[in-house]
């Protein structure tokens, strides 16, 4: 049993698509160093960032066409990781290769599969279509190497009670801590829903709604294992039917979070916030971007400070890291689903062989 805190058989966001050009980009995912680059046909390659020969990071080398040339002795590797050149010999050692990882670009992000490549099915890439929905607008970003393990961010996003205390003055409000909430789950997902009816809107939402009137406010937070969260949040004029589905008198924002383990105590946090109003107005895009990340002043900057301080404390104290409250139900379901995925990878499923009757199977 390993102490690995994340499953490997998953699509993890590694970069925004626009960040990966025809040049070598190093990135660490799941404690594995990768080098990413865009091939001349537009596809992306993801290779282990260590030369087969002497382990020099390939990202310190250069691209020759679509092959990576090691910056030490010139061994070359194609986008599948096969060695295509060895210096001073007429043949190529057939064992020479570096690991290549399944990679796909979808909904503005680059997703890499860190586990068993035979199970990499692009149909299971998390649905982030909001990132590319023409009816929505926004500009996100990334906290690369955020110094907390990825599940702390999942905890953070699956219970927004913290808005009241971490984000007072923007999205925080006492009504959050008073409102009841529902937590539902299935095999792969958790949903936390909370309605705050007929209250005043906090400044962030009052500004987007454009009028300071009593509102019905909602948090619909949806977690998909192992590490993506889509939040459907917003306000509508109180009593205009938002709880029944009529948001015509309101504004909606979707926050999209993809968390990627980097090490056991750090992660990459890809975030976006897209709105359904003023979608052609770049000023709103910039305003909402800076409301989240703004040189330490944004909402996510505030989360970052809390999360990193929390990770330091978790590493420091010799006690079970968490005692839990009622509000932690969503996070606890998410962690339980993640634990199940990890355990399933460590024990090969007995049903794996049912597709092929085995002549080698143990006879009773």
């Amino acid at each position: 049993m390993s102490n690995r805190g994340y499953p490997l058989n998953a699509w993890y966001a590694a970069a925004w698509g626009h960040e990966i050009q025809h040049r070598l980009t190093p990135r660490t995912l799941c404690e594995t160093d990768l080098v990413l680059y865009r091939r001349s046909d537009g596809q992306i390659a993801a290779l282990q960032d260590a030369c087969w020969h002497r382990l020099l990071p390939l990202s310190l080398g250069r691209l020759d066409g679509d092959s990576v040339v090691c910056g030490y002795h010139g061994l070359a590797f194609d986008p599948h990781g096969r060695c295509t050149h060895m210096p001073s010999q007429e043949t190529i050692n057939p064992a020479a290769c570096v690991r290549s990882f399944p990679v796909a670009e979808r909904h503005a992000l680059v997703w890499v599969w860190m586990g068993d490549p035979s199970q990499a099915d692009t149909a299971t890439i998390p649905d982030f279509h909001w990132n590319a929905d023409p009816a929505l607008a926004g500009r996100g970003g990334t906290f690369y190497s955020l110094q907390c393990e990825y599940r702390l961010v999942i905890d953070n996003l699956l219970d927004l009670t913290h808005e009241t205390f971490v984000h007072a003055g923007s999205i925080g409000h006492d009504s959050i801590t008073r409102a009841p909430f529902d937590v539902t789950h299935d095999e792969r997902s958790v949903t936390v829903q909370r309605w705050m009816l007929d209250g005043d809107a906090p400044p962030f939402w009052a500004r987007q709604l454009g009028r300071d009137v009593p509102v019905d406010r909602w948090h619909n937070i949806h977690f998909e294992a192992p590490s993506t969260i889509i939040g459907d949040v917003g306000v509508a004029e109180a009593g205009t039917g938002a709880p029944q589905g009529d948001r015509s008198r309101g504004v909606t924002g979707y926050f999209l979070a993809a968390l990627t383990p980097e090490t056991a105590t750090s992660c990459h946090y890809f975030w976006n916030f897209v709105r359904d109003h003023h979608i052609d107005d770049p000023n709103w895009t910039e305003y909402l971007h800076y409301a989240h990340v703004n040189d330490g002043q944004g909402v996510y900057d505030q989360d970052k400070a809390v999360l990193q301080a929390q990770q330091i404390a978790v590493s420091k104290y010799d006690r079970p890291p968490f005692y839990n409250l009622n509000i932690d139900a969503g996070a606890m379901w998410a962690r339980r689903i993640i634990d199940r995925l990890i355990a399933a990878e460590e024990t090969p499923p007995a049903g794996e062989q049912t597709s092929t009757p085995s002549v080698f199977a143990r006879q009773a």
Partner: protein
Amino acid sequence: MNPRSLPSVHTPPRWEPATLARCHDLGSDVRLFEVRPDSGATAPYTPGSHLPLQLEFDGHPQTRHYSLLEEAGDAGVYRFAVKRLVHSRGGSEHLWQLAPGDKLTIAGPANHFPLSFANPEYLLIAGGIGITPLYGMALALHRAGKRLRLIYVSRDSAREHFATALSALGAALEVYPDSASAAPAIQRAVAALDPAGEAYICGPAGLRRHVRALWEAEARPPWALRYETFANGGERPEETFEVSVRNLGISFEVPPHRSLLESLIDHDIEALYDCQRGECGLCAVDVVSHEGSIDHRDVYFSARQHAADDKLCTCVSRIAGHGRVVIDTRRQGIRD
């Protein structure tokens, strides 16, 4: 003379105790072995992986590698199938004498023959017991919905077992009794393979040479032809031959179950080596003269270099025809 086991300088294995849990004949000369690590924990592995075993026979500790069959892992055992080869390096004969309950020393699975899943099409060619690594690969590719063809050339007594176990492949599996009947199919398959496809071969040296020639004739990229060498499977049987090390004035015989490299080290002659599979070329020495023919079993030298017969890889290559060879061990490097 001081027989010893050659440690791998490349990836020192972490040896652990294990027990032979079961053996079961798949045919008259092919036996399935199930080995249970005493720790009770089998490590996960990918298709193409092998299990290192440390055996002791003929008075020497010896390391052998056996390709793992895919089903292992589920019952806390590693499974591999071995063909009994009388004229080989002795590993199979030794294994044949083992019975369930016998103690073994193993290391965790390693993979020098990794399968990619990124190519549009795959051609797998297995000769005889060379089916064992390709067996798991074929099933994994099939499950992943990849386009593949497996050409299985064998007269082995275990052929029917493997063919039945691979029946899920349907028409993607072609079985032939010998290389003559398989040759047209192999030629067609190499010609028809997607330009971005990969081929994986495991089998005797003759099969590998045959496919390599077809591959070159089709001007396909050499790195898309994947094969694994196990320091066995030469053109000629293992025979005793005589070696003279000219620069040291030492002569001795290399017995059938011992490589030239091992014999050099047994005689306290310092020798450089690494892979012990005929891949890296570090153990190559100059051939001053020879009687009998050099059975080049390495994949390091090109066909042109093999034809020159002026160097040989001591870890795998031998002299056939009860011959002798005079070598010089002073020099490494390349010379045209």
